[in-house]
């Protein structure tokens, strides 16, 4: 039992460090067509164990957002978006995967809930994250449509990257 828990903890810590590093060192320097910036690190919050303690989830999400903020000089921006999706995560999982029994420490990853289920789950939470992020960043509803187009494109891009990341890492496990 303890071994399983440690395994899950270690896996999540490794995921945290690698996703944050990729985010702040590579993706934050990427500006597709001038202003698009994919946010891959959300995947860490999405892949935390499905039956994790809900308060712990909020705190982990807050610290994750704060870490990204710390590197991007946007203290509080990512933190608030991350806390919001952590708040909605248990409900979202319940809504989409009510029939699925998660084992202790099991992630809501494609391996257990299928690619289609995961896509629904990832798109909805990423979309909420991006809405909060972009509208808090400009802090006004001026240019509403311009900001909204940024939200949409950035969501698509981020989810696409997540799928690629999952495909790469799951292949490695099989071999």
């Amino acid at each position, binding site marked *: 039992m303890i071994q399983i828990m440690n395994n899950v903890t270690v896996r999540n810590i490794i995921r945290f460090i690698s996703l944050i590093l990729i985010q702040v*060192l590579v993706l934050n320097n990427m500006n597709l067509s001038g202003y698009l910036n994919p946010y891959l690190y959300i995947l860490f919050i999405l892949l935390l164990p499905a039956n994790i303690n809900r308060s712990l989830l909020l705190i982990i999400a807050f610290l994750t957002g704060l870490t990204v*903020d710390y590197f991007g000089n946007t203290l509080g921006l990512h*933190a608030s978006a991350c806390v919001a999706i952590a708040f909605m995560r248990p409900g979202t999982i319940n809504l989409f995967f009510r029939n699925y029994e998660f084992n202790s420490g099991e992630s809501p990853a494609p391996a257990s809930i299928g690619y289609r289920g995961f896509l629904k789950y990832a798109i909805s939470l990423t979309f909420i994250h991006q809405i909060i992020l972009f509208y808090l960043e400009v802090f006004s509803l001026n240019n509403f449509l*311009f900001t909204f187009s940024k939200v949409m494109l950035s969501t698509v891009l981020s989810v696409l990257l997540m799928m690629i990341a999952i495909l790469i890492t799951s292949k490695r496990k099989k071999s």
Partner: protein
Amino acid sequence: MRNLFALLWKNQFFVLFILLEVTSIVLLSRSYSYHGSITHNTTSDITGSVFSSYGNISDYLSLANENEVLANENAELRNMIDASFLITDTLYVYRDSMFRYIPAKVISNSVSKSNNFIMINKGANHGIKKEMGVISSNGVAGVVVGVSDHFSTIMSMLHGNMRISARIKNSGQLVNVIWDNNDYLFGTVIDIPSHIKLGKGDSIITSGNSLIYPEGIMIGQIESHEINNNKNLTTAILRYSTDFNSIKHLYAIENIMKQEQDSLLSQFDSDNE
């Protein structure tokens, strides 16, 4: 009282959510004013060292390009030294330098956000101070807002609160330059007197009024000027001469006489009160 705690404990998920959300918003709101971003920013040796070790690797990829830029700049500087002039003016006896340039390398940069910052690899140990101006070899880049021992954060020209005093090179009229959030290539010139007509390619330079930049540093060139007869002041779109997406080397500018100028100004202020 006990019931209250019991109720809070029962709803700890929701209470914690509100608590963390409020904390983030408070942190965020502090950074929304110009002075807020000067006092509260996350420049530190931790983020700095992560960025700079990454920067060391990525620099190798653009060495050839950088060498060319530096060589061009060397040539320009060579043109400025006394030996480059044919006639040496013997009456020119008193020359006191007012600005000192500290070269620095960019270790992190962004152009896609609504408020962009640049981090450089020089800090308090190298003489960088808050509110020093920063330029690239092509033009103005920003203002230092945060300093740690080895690194500094610069509020880039691409920041919603950025506003610098400028001058139209041809006519000498004073204007202001701001950034209106959309595109890293373009800024906005505001407060242009309505009788001035600007054409594409007119140069906008620093005015020297702010004591941060020397006078006459290039900011950019006019892209288009909208003339509206109903207003006293018009605005124009400006193309920055600095390419913010590719800057690697910057110069922080120390105004050696700033203290003297500031004390003179504050003396005047206190006389008025």
